[in-house]
């Protein structure tokens, strides 16, 4: 099972390239053009990541992160969510780059293979920047009355956080 997961990405790369070649696509220029746009996105997130990781590292050094965790601990423990991930839950629906910064900080601080580090990674991978997305979509469509869109989307986020914690304990017991 582990081997299948480890080899999934290399095989996806090969499979995609072969399929592209059969379809007579110039896969090399597609690969390099795509990589160019990936580089541009990476450069775009550099300035916000520097600003956010500065603030997040200061918060961690000051002890405010642990404070937030212990403040929210009663609620989070009841939901089965490790309290150490509290800062990520707070920023996740608001800002994508802040979530990336906070998530990376948690993964670094607790280790990528720890329960907390894995839970933070799964949370990052299974939720989105809800408020930003709602603003962009309804802004573009000229919607003023959003009805139940925000509560339904936030409920999905909450379910994602709880499910992330539960799935990590399911797949990585002990």
């Amino acid at each position, binding site marked *: 099972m582990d081997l299948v997961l*480890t080899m*999934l990405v290399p095989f996806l790369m090969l499979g*995609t*390239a072969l*399929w*592209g070649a059969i*379809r007579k*696509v110039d*896969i090399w220029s*597609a*690969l*390099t*053009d795509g990589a*160019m746009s*990936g580089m541009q996105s*990476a450069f775009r*997130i550099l300035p916000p*990541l*520097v600003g956010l990781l*500065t*603030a997040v*590292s*200061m918060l961690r*050094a000051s*002890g405010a992160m642990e404070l937030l965790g212990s403040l929210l601990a009663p609620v989070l423990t009841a939901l089965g969510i490790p309290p150490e991930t509290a800062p990520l839950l707070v920023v996740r629906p608001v*800002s994508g780059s*802040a979530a*990336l910064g906070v*998530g*990376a*900080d948690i*993964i670094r601080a607790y*280790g*990528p293979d720890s329960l907390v*580090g894995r839970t933070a*990674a*799964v949370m*990052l*991978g*299974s939720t*989105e920047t809800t408020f930003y*997305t*709602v603003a*962009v*979509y*309804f802004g573009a469509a*000229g*919607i*003023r009355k959003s*009805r*139940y*869109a925000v509560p*339904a*989307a936030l*409920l*999905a986020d909450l379910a*994602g956080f709880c*499910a992330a914690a539960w*799935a*990590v304990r399911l797949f990585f017991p002990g």
Partner: protein
Amino acid sequence: MAMSVIWIGMVGLAIFCGLATGRGPDVAKAALDGASAGVELTLSLMGVMCLWTGVMEVMRRSGIAEGLSRLLRPLLCRLYPDYADDQPVMDAVSANFSANLLGLGNASTPLGLEAARRMAVGKDGIATDGLCMLVVTNTASIQLIPATVAGIRSAAGCTSPFDILPAVWVASLLSVTVGITAAKCMSRLWR
């Protein structure tokens, strides 16, 4: 603007907390460490991001995204019953959904906005059930291969950064199911 307030709040709170707990010097040092950590993180992610957007571009040009979108269409028509007969809307919705599955962030947003604009025509600025469903499926992450997260784990010294994939799939599926169910239930109650 919101980010400005958040940033000032974070830095202010860190300084206040640091001084209150006697960790002022640690906070000052952390500011510089954090700034370079931001650059290091971006640089270590850049390779993964380039590789994966490259592979995704191959998928897009060789028609894999299009095929997936055709495959998903019958399922999506059930999710958007009001638009099932509206060709242009369902085209945009299914292309948006398949781009989200493959993690084609740059392609999915314009497609989703196209669908949103078409759905909003003549609705007088009030979100229809279809628009709410579109927002819910776009605020729930359904990406099959979260490459950036794997990059972060690998940068932190993880030897098998993709071992979280089954957990991500289960969590994403539960999250999007809850979102869709909530939207369907609320659409009856919320007039």
